[in-house]
Every structure is written in C-alpha cells, then in structure tokens.
C-alpha cells in the first residue's frame, strides 16, 4: 500500500514496454499513456494518507512525500494532456518516449521519499537518465541537430552536477559515519561552520541546484529548453523542480544549528539567479528560452523561502513552487497548442493570438501576469509571502534586490502579452484545441486565480505538510 504509487508507475512502464515490442499505433499509445497517467494519479490519491518507512529506513512515507507525489503525478498528467500529440517525435518511438517519461517520474517520486544519501543518489540518477534520452528524441530540424546538442549538454552538465553531489556525499559520510540523512544532519549541525561541512553541504546542494536550474548550475537551461521538443521541455520545466524543492527543503530543514555562512552562500545564489535569469530573459526571442531564463529567476525566489530556515519559509517555498509549476504548465499548454507541427514557437508567432484563440490568449495572459507577480494571481501572493518572510528575518537588502527583480521581469512577460493582444496575426487560422486541452487550461486558470485570491487554505496546508516532515 505504502509503495503503491511507485508500483503503479513501474507497472505502467512495463505495460508501455510490452506495447513498444509490438507494432506501434500512435493513437492507441497515447490513449494508453493517458489512462496510465490517470491510474498513477489515482494511486497517489489513494495512498495519500499512508505513513511509514521502507527499505531499512532509507525510504520514508509521510504526508510530505505523499503531497509531493500527488503533485508530481498531477503535473505529469497535465504534461501528458498538453503533449498528447507528441507532434515533433517520430510515431515509431512514441512508446519508448512514454516509457522513459514514466521511469523518470518514478525516479522523482522515489526522490521525494528518500531519506538516505545513496537512495537519494539512485533516485536522482534514475530520473535524470530517462530524461537524458527523452531530450534527443526529437525529429531533426534541418541539419542543425539542435536536439542532439541539447541532449549532450543536459547529459554532461547533469553528470558533472551528480559528480559534485556524490563527492559531497562522500565528505558527509566521512564527517559523520552515516548515510542516514537525519543522523548526518544532526552530526553536521555541531560542526556547521567548519569548512569541510560547508563544502560537503554545498556540493550536495549542487545536485539539487542543477535540477532546479539555480545559478551556478543553470548553464544547461536555455539550450535544452530550446533543443528539446515542446512536450519534453514542459516536463523538464515543471515536474523535476517539484522534486528538487521537496528534497532541498527536507535537507535544509534537518539543519538545526546556526549556519550563517550557508545562509550567505544561498543568498548570493538566489540574488545572482534572479539577476542572471531576468536580465537574460529580456533579450530572448524564443519563448521557450525566455521561460527557461525566467525559470532560473523563479528558482532564486524559491530559495528566498528556503534560506529563512523557518517552517513558514519552507511552506512559502512550497506554495510558490506549486504556483510556479501551474503557471508554467499553463504557458506550455499554450505553446504546445500554438505550435502546429511541434516546431519551436517564437514570441512573434504569438502575434494576434487573441484573434486565433481567445481562450489560449487568456490562459497565456493570466499565466504570464501571474509569473510576473501581478495581483490577484498566485505569483503575486507567493512572492509577497516570500518577501515578507525574508524581511521578517531581517534580510532587507535581499528583499529590495528581489523587488527590483520583479520590476525587471515585468518587461519581458509584458512584451509577450503585448504581441498576443496588440499584434496582428501573420496567419489567420483559428487554433483548434481539443476539449481536453480547453478543460485543462480552464482548470489551470482557476487554480492560478483561486490560489492567489484565497491563499489561506493552501498556506495552512503547506505549513502542516512541512510540519509533518519535521
């Protein structure tokens, strides 16, 4: 029972593997994948209130992990819906694509439950390797092989980051003699300001920074976002970030000593992420690249909650990343619908979108305004609570720098909104989006508005989730 979501995923992957052996039929495949996605989501809901630990305490099942598993399954379901057609991927490899997608999600789900260094490592690798293969599975556009470049970049940066992480773990083991996260962190807290401990923690964090696309482990983002197919990018941009934040919070929350040096390092990373992401996003013409850079900036904001080392700060970070994933998925839903053959979407291709499809234009506008942090949407509330939390801890300068970043970010989000509403379409075809897509976009819209207008329940829930893990 406790392992049900993971078992369902594994079973789903096996079913897809069996399908991939036979002659593939794209239509049937996508129905099967969607069905399996729903089954996984149902399984996570079903085992929502489970508690316990498995595998000699390497694997912990609590409210915290189950909430994240549900979120991951939900986000995966949205990715499956918006990428139903897999437009830019050869029909013959659709089963393999889904196979790796499910395996990657399996890795992520295991990641949020892992409380032991090696289990974390294994789960992380499982989720990463599947994605390394998904990235280059795109059709060749011309002779650029940009998908290959993206795949290689993702792989090399990923391996480097994991290398750092593994090295840091070896330090941790050397310093504490244990691989159990709870024991490690308890012992580390006594030597928290020792250089060896700081190096160990920073190196382990590097692995999560890579997943979360935080400075200085962000270099893969633009090219991978651009090179991978739209559906893959939607996945990379949302689901792994949930798991990364989950583990980051789990790791940091076990620290109970005073660690001003670590806080300072995290602050520097947060500020640099925001500035780097926002300033680079200003000049992008490809919307996926732009969202990639904006994702770097948003990761910096998430860090703002984590570095307060308070339960309320973790809860805010959790609230923010959920909101971010929803806003981001809404954007990718529009991108995938606008791109007729799965090609990349330039910002100017969105010109006059409101004439071609009012619902998609509304979805994109709300999502972008929310990402920009304009009330009454979730992005504003999230940012507001993060800033309030950071200022409560007395980080005035950090808050001012973050606020300046909000102002910078408006410009590039607004320039996309500008073309969708004020531009004239180059191509007047109405965009036909299916019933599923429309319903999903309305649901995402509602979540963005409701989370922004009535955040109380969500924050309470996030707080109790974080508390359950302590």
């Amino acid at each position, binding site marked *: 029972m406790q392992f049900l979501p993971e078992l369902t995923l594994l079973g789903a992957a096996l079913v897809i593997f069996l399908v991939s052996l036979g002659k593939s039929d794209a239509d049937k495949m996508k129905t099967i994948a969607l069905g399996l996605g729903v089954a996984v989501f149902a399984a996570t809901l079903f085992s929502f209130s489970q508690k316990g630990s498995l595998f000699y305490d390497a694997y912990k099942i609590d409210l915290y992990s189950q909430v994240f598993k549900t979120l991951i399954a939900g986000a995966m379901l949205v990715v499956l819906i918006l990428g139903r057609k897999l437009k830019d991927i050869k029909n013959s490899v659709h089963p393999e694509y889904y196979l790796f997608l499910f395996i990657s999600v399996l890795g992520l789900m295991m990641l949020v439950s892992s409380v032991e260094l090696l289990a974390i490592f294994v789960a992380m690798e499982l989720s990463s390797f599947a994605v390394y293969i998904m990235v280059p599975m795109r059709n060749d556009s011309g002779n650029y092989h940009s998908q290959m470049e993206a795949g290689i970049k993702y792989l090399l940066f990923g391996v480097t980051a994991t290398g750092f992480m593994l090295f840091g773990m070896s330090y941790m083991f050397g310093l504490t003699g244990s691989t159990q996260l709870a024991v490690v962190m308890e012992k580390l807290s006594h030597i928290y300001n020792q250089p060896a401990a700081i190096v160990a923690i920073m190196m382990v964090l590097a692995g999560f920074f890579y997943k979360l696309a935080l400075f200085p482990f962000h270099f893969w983002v633009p090219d991978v976002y651009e090179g991978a197919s739209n559906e893959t990018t939607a996945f990379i941009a949302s689901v792994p970030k949930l798991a990364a934040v989950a583990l980051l919070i789990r790791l940091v929350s076990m620290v109970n000593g005073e660690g001003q040096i670590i806080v300072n390092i995290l602050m520097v990373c947060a500020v640099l992420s925001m500035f780097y992401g926002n300033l680079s996003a200003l000049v992008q013409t490809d919307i996926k690249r732009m969202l990639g850079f904006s994702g770097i900036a948003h990761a910096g904001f998430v860090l703002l909650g984590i570095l307060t080392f308070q339960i309320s700060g973790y809860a805010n970070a959790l609230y923010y990343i959920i909101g971010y994933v929803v806003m981001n998925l809404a954007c990718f839903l529009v991108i995938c619908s606008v791109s007729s053959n799965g090609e990349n979407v330039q910002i100017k291709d969105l010109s006059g979108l409101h004439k071609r499809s009012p619902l998609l234009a509304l979805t994109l506008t709300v999502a972008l305004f929310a990402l920009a942090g304009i009330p009454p949407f979730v992005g504003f509330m999230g940012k507001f609570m993060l800033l309030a939390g950071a*200022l409560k801890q007395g980080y*005035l300068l950090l808050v001012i720098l973050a*606020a300046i970043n909000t102002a910078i970010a*408006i*410009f590039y989000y607004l320039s996309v*909104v500008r073309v969708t*509403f004020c531009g004239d379409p180059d191509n007047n075809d109405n965009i036909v989006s299916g019933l599923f897509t429309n319903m999903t976009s309305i649901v995402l819209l509602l979540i963005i508005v409701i989370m922004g207008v009535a955040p109380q329940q969500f924050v*309470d829930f996030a707080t109790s989730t974080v508390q359950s893990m302590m």
Partner: protein
Amino acid sequence: MDQLLINPNYPHILSTLIFLPLAGALLLFFVQNEYFARYWALGIATLTAILSIPLVSAFDQTSAKFQFVEQCSWINSLNIQYVIGVDGISILLVMLTTLIMPLCILASWSYIKTRVQAFMICLLIMETAMLGVFMALDFVLFYILWEAMLIPMYLLIGIWGGPRKIYASIKFFLYTLAGSIMLLVGIIWLYKTNNYSFFIPDMMWQNYSLSAQIYLFLAFFLAFAIKVPMFPFHTWLPAAHVEAPTAGSVILASVLLKMGTYGFLRFALPITPQATTLLMPYVLWLSIAGIIYGGFTALAQQDMKKLIAYSSVGHMGFVTLGIFVLNLEGMEGSILQMINHGITTGALFLCVGMIYERTHSRELRSATGVGKYMPIYVTFLAFFSLSSFGFPGTNSFVGEFMILAGTFKHSIPLALAAIPGAVLAAAYMLRMLQKIVWGGTDNPDQSWLKDLNLREIITLCPFLFFVFWIGLGPQPFIDLMHISVINLLEQFHAHQGQAVAAAELILH
C-alpha cells in the same frame, strides 16, 4: 479599532459597491451578444452609482472616523484582513468613481465597435479595483487592487487604443509598476515594525525613526508621484492619454490620477509626518515646476488630447501644491480640486472623443471652425474650457482659489510662482476654444458634421451640472471632508511638534 465606525443601517454597502461590477463582469464572460453587453454594463454601472448615493446621505459629517466599515479576516497566517471603510477624504473620490463610470460606458456606446464584451469586462473590473483602492484599510488589500488595476487599463489602451498604443500601454504599465515595487517593500517593513499588522489606521502616527520615515516617504513618493503624475515623472501620461480610447482617457484623468494624491493624503502624511515636514519644500517646488511646465507644454500642442493631458500635469501640480502646504485651506482646496479635475478634464476628454468619432483625427487643425455646425457641442466645450482654467463661477475656481489662499498663507514667493500657471491655463484653453469654435480663414469644410445626439448630450449634462454646483455652492462638498481634514492636520501638527520638541531636547 477605535478609528472605525460601523454603520448598522448599511452593513454591507461598500462591499456591494465593490463586488457588483465584478459580478457583472463575470457574467459578461459568458455572453456573446454585443448589444446585451452594452446595456448590461450600463445597467450595472448605473445600479452601482444609485447604490452609492446612500453613502453621502448617511455619512456622519461630524466624525473623522472611517465609516461604513466592514471587516473580516482574509489571510490569517499573515494577518491580512479584508477591511474597508470611507472617511471624509475618500468618500468624494468614491462618489466620483461610481458616478463617472456609467458616463464612460455611454461615451463608448458607438466608439467601441470591436470586442465590445471584452471592453465592458475591462471597464467593470476597473471600477471594482478603483473603488477598492479608495476604500481599502488594509495595506495588502490596497496594494493588490492598486496593481491589479493595471491589467484592465493596460488592455484598454493596448487593444482599443490609437496607433501608438503598444508603446503607450507598455510605458504606462512599466512606469506604474516599477514605481510601486518599493512601496511593497515599505509595506512589508511597516508590517514587521507594527507588530505584524497590515491595518492602515494602526500604522499612522507611530513615531518611526526619522531615517526610516525618510526611506518610507521616498518609497511612497516614487509610487504616488508617478501616478499623479508629478514633474518629472509625467512622461507616461501624455502617451497613455493620447492613445487610450475615450473611456480610458476619462478614467485615467478622472480617477487614476487621483490615486496618487489620495496616496499622499492617506499614507505619506500620517505615516511619515516628520519626513513630510523635512522634504515638503522639494515637493512644493516640484509641484510649481509641474504647473509651469504643464502650462507651457500644453500651449504648444497641436493634438487636442495631448493638450488636455499636459494641462492635467499642471492641474495636478496645483493639487500636490495644496496638499503639501499643509494647512486647512490648501488641503481642502486640493481635495476639492481633485474632484473638479475629475469632472472638468473628464468632460473635456469626452468632448475630444466626440469630435474624434466624427473626424477621426485629434489634430486641432482638422477640428477648427466647427462652432457654426455644432452649436450644442461648442456650448458644452466652452463651459468645460472655462471651468478648466478656473473661471469664476465654475468649479475649478473654487478649488484653485482655496489652494492659492493656502499657499499664500504658507509662503508668498511660492504662491507668486504658481500664479503664472493659472494665466497659462487660460491661454492654452482659450487658444483651443478659439480654434475649435471659430478657427481661421483656412478652416476645412465642416458642414457635414452632425451635432451631438441625445446620448451624447445626456453623457455631458451631469458634468455640466457638477461644474456649476461646485462652482456656485461648494459648501456641501467641503462639509463632507471638513472634519477629516481638520483631524488629519491636528494629528499632523501634534506629531510634527513632538518631533521638533525631541530634536530641541537633543540639541540642548
């Protein structure tokens, strides 16, 4: 909570006013019929206006407390409440907003031909946000509505605007948003300092340290001065005014600009009294600069909307002048002048919009000599122009007179510096009036122009009514705000005095 007064006869009147337009807008999302959308929006806005009338009749003029208060918790974890109320300073602005909205919808009746439902949705959401800004007593509620208002206004300019709408809408959005970012930091700082409460009346008169007050004042000033707009933060205004559709220009001029001056009165003065005293001279001279600059620039304009936009810079300069001389005449004159500017400039934008609907040009050259063919139109225009430069008997005269009286009391050189502004106003308004009514020997052929129709006359009449009412009998309006202004000034001087006393103590 002793600053609040709950009026048992009208327990939910303010919430009704806020949420009625929003509910109306939500319904329009499901409507495809343009005619229905127009009538529906007009009906909702009129209903809101009618429902707002009891506010005035039941308002207790002898109390400086916030009235018609409604309060409930909203976000517990941050202690954010949904708390709204009006006092003598905000009630007139609330009334101005509710009364002007139906007229804006009437003015867009035939002007807006495409995507009517979306236009009406934007207008109604604007109304909700604007009313909320004037009523909010919780700083987060205020900030949310203050920012949320940008989205519908951006769309109003960006979709239905003129040829340079993209530039204008982006500039408007960026300026306002960038300006209010530091306001947000200030709000959070106040929250932390005030025992984790966002309740605005609790933040007032708190004796923060002088350096904190100065930083807070600067944060407030940046946000509000851009919104007013004060020279040199005014450059977004002409662009936005010129490109916005008529209703957008009217809302911008009549209501949005007032939010800046309202912000000064509501936040800057009570929260940072010492910083205000310290920085007052700079603000006053910036106001003078705005008055003179607005006047000269308006004199040189060929585009009628631009002319009125620059005249707004000058008129709002008078308003900030009146606020920061910090005496009773000046402040009451300022609040009255906010209303006057809303009425007169709103009406002038409507007049320009009516010409534009006919000739499809805002150039002064192409509108010359219409007096012969549009007698009703030029009658209205003449009255509003006279009102705009403060002709005795019209509303602006009363406001400007009070402001200048207050300025003379404060400092004579300052008042003398403001006088040319009033002369300039007469110059540019009369120049426009002369050209439109008579023109010269080279007038274009205007004989095909039709005079105003009944709808347009109905739109303009209420404005004219208020021009003369405030011009001839301003007392009821002043009575409404009197006690609140006196209370504000008394508290202000008390806290300023404390500060001076403390400073002397340190010095000796």
